[in-house]
């Protein structure tokens, strides 16, 4: 494909994204239905890399996701260089292009896992930093985002420190698994000696079954009531008046949680009990007082929880009150399925990922409402962390965290 053709293709994609954002309505508490589900939208082939915000937040979730936490082992003088390299590689990988013969004096520059012409394939690389990056090592202690801290242990957690925290979180999503793999392999190769993997997990988005929002591995549609890009300023993006450091404007907070699902146990639970725990019908995803997944549950007319129990997951997570409206989060999770547990059970679960403007006001408020919900017997959070997602890269010269260092 010639460069000219490719450029015009990018333009077309960009226009499509804009159109989507405009057509999406604002979801108010009083709305009769939740916003159109992002998950049924196809991620475009080339997701625009530059902009006020990073891609991979409101981007319709691609089918494959890789979450990789790194620790920085470079010294203070080299941290900015690491972010420059990451930006350069992410810029290339998310745009696609030909790989090149480096001559006879080097091993091949590219693995060719995606063939000799690297397709963008809907790739997004979303780069975030953990609280530990702001310790004494890099002289950044005074520049930490206001609400960034190490993820605490919640009452129902069973945390394994090997699966927690990290200086950096790379969320790599693409239309296909091999594309996400290729990107991670390329990024690690170009940054060897500067950052080192701490843990990583691959996940997948399930297609609509048979329609609507993706189902989690408990069989329930998950992420139905998600904010849309129109809610970004209110719920997701850090604004300039939030008391945050100026460099953080346009960024967002990312929460990643690894949640094991005890699916064998779950499959031994009656359908009625399963549905009461979630508060939704398993087949359609509709709230138990409704008929369709995007209907808003009418808690006001069910004050004692006769239809949707007061401790149902959807009711505790999002009570749909004016007071809790500001605590909504953008969920962008991936299912995972990776082997066998020591007890012979399937090792499967959810990579919970959410974006929010304020971790305390949103994620933690939601998480605390969910303490001891009935569902906790069937899930086991064991890892994850809090991260701050850098603002977007403005142009070809920009790099992650440029404003953090100036």
């Amino acid at each position, binding site marked *: 494909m010639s*460069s000219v053709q490719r450029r015009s293709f990018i333009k077309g994609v960009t226009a499509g994204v804009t159109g989507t954002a405009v057509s999406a309505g604002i979801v108010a508490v009083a709305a009769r239905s939740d916003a159109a589900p992002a998950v049924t939208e196809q991620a475009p082939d080339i997701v625009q890399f530059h902009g006020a915000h990073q891609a991979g937040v409101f981007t319709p979730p691609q089918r494959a996701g890789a979450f990789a936490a790194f620790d920085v082992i470079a010294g203070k003088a080299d941290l900015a260089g690491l972010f420059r*390299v990451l930006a350069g590689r992410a810029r290339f990988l998310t745009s696609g292009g030909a790989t090149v*013969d480096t001559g006879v004096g*080097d091993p091949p*520059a590219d693995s060719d896992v995606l063939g000799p012409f690297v397709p963008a394939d809907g790739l997004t690389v979303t780069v975030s930093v953990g609280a530990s990056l702001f310790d004494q090592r890099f002289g950044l202690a005074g520049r930490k985002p206001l609400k960034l801290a190490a993820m605490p242990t919640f009452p129902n957690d069973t945390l394994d420190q090997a699966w927690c925290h990290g200086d950096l979180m790379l969320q790599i999503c693409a239309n296909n698994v091999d594309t996400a793999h290729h990107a991670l392999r390329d990024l690690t190769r170009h940054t*060897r*000696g*500067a950052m*080192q993997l701490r843990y990583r997990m691959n996940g997948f988005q399930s297609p609509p079954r048979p329609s609507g929002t993706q189902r989690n591995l408990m069989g329930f549609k998950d992420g139905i009531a998600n904010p849309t890009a129109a809610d970004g300023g209110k719920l997701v993006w850090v604004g300039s008046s939030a008391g945050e450091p100026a460099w953080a404007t346009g960024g967002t907070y990312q929460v990643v949680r690894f949640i094991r699902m005890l699916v064998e146990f779950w499959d031994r639970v009656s359908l009625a009990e399963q549905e009461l725990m979630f508060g939704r019908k398993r087949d359609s995803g509709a709230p138990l007082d409704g008929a369709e997944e995007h209907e808003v549950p009418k808690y006001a007319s069910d004050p004692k929880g006769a239809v949707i129990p007061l401790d149902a997951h959807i009711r505790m997570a999002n009570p749909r009150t004016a007071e809790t409206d500001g605590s909504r989060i953008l969920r962008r999770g991936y299912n995972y399925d990776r082997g066998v547990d020591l007890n012979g059970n399937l090792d499967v679960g959810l990579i919970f990922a959410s974006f929010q403007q304020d971790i305390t006001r949103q994620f933690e408020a939601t998480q605390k409402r969910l303490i001891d919900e009935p569902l906790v017997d069937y899930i086991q959070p064991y890892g994850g962390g809090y991260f701050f997602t850098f603002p977007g890269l403005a142009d*070809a010269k920009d790099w992650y965290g440029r404003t953090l260092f100036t």
Partner: protein
Amino acid sequence: MSETGASGGTPDGDIPDGDTDTPDGETPVPARDGRIRRQRVIGAALVLVVAGAAGWFAVGHGRATAAAHHNIEITPTGCAPGWQPAAGSAQSFVIVNKSGRTGEIYLLDTNGGVVGEIEGLGPGVQRTMSVPLANGVYKWLCVMTDMPVRASGQGRVTGSTAPAVEAVLPVSEKDLAAPVAAYQAYVAPKLADLLRQVGTLRGAVQAGDVATARSDWLAAQSTWEQVGAAYGSFEDLGDAIGGLPHGLPGGVTDADFTGLHRIEFGLWHNEKPASLLPVVDKLAADVTELRGKLPQLTIDPNDLSLRAHEILEDALRDHLTGSTDQGSGAAFAETYADLQGTRVVFEELAALVTARRPELPAQARDQMNTLEVALLANRTDGRWLGLSAAPLANRQRVNGALGALLETLAAVPDLLEIRNASQATK
């Protein structure tokens, strides 16, 4: 932060002259020194050695937009008769071997540097070669078995905007003779050291002093690692001395599991020291035999440059995963010894490397120093931390420093491969 080679458009945020910012962020960057190499973050120095994304684009566009195919024929009497390159950057050649022989064809620049090669080209075989060429003069060299080495006429590339592929001056077997001799001269006294250390170990084993035997074992094991017997050099004797139970039907109880790791297994698994004496004696006999054979052992010169990165590839694969550990947990000590062996091999080759890529040796030495510091953080008062006892941060620093070094060293065998192009009459 220092920077060499072409910029990927990211370092320091400034873009060299000649760039064009395009709306979708593509920034073709002509390489300043005419090289295209991958962008790397290199250890503490974080040298960004390359073209990276932007450079790839520049090449990619060239290749994607043009590239008419040109037939290059090897005949019984000629090498690419009548060839002419296309105008512009992208070149795509179809090589047709009509000589009836097997051999190699090289594309050389005016300095005799190789910019493209096809090796093992059989009779009647047709292969393609795509290579972006910078402006300049090039010729082909055909090196077919039982035929005189023939060069083509010169072809001139004009109107190219591509950065040149990095040319590599071919290395001959003769070029590697001195490094190979130096390596053999290094190994001989190391084996003498090893034999002496095995004798010391025998004393401790015979005395039933397990603690002393363990430290004697580590001394002997470290010497063996320093020899750099990567990937099956020394063949059966190498296995007898440093072999692992992996792949043996009986595993650790297999009769063929002998040598240093067998002794390690016994010393860390409560075996009676006396029962290890025959193993120690066999080890001494095997080392003695290897010493005797060493002068006759021919070292493939290509193996030496492979060893420049494979000794440490072994360390990463075997030691730092714990997969070869027979109980000692000595991964850091063994890797440290491997680093010492690598330094020796690398320095023997450094002059040849410098002639082909001047900045590489300094970069490799910096990274070796970084790795050494990271390893030594796990040694206190002469005692090494076990792999599993080391904090995650320590392991990350070792793994990361080693990974960065290996990316650099990986070029050594490609740069120093013996190429028949060295037969060119210059």
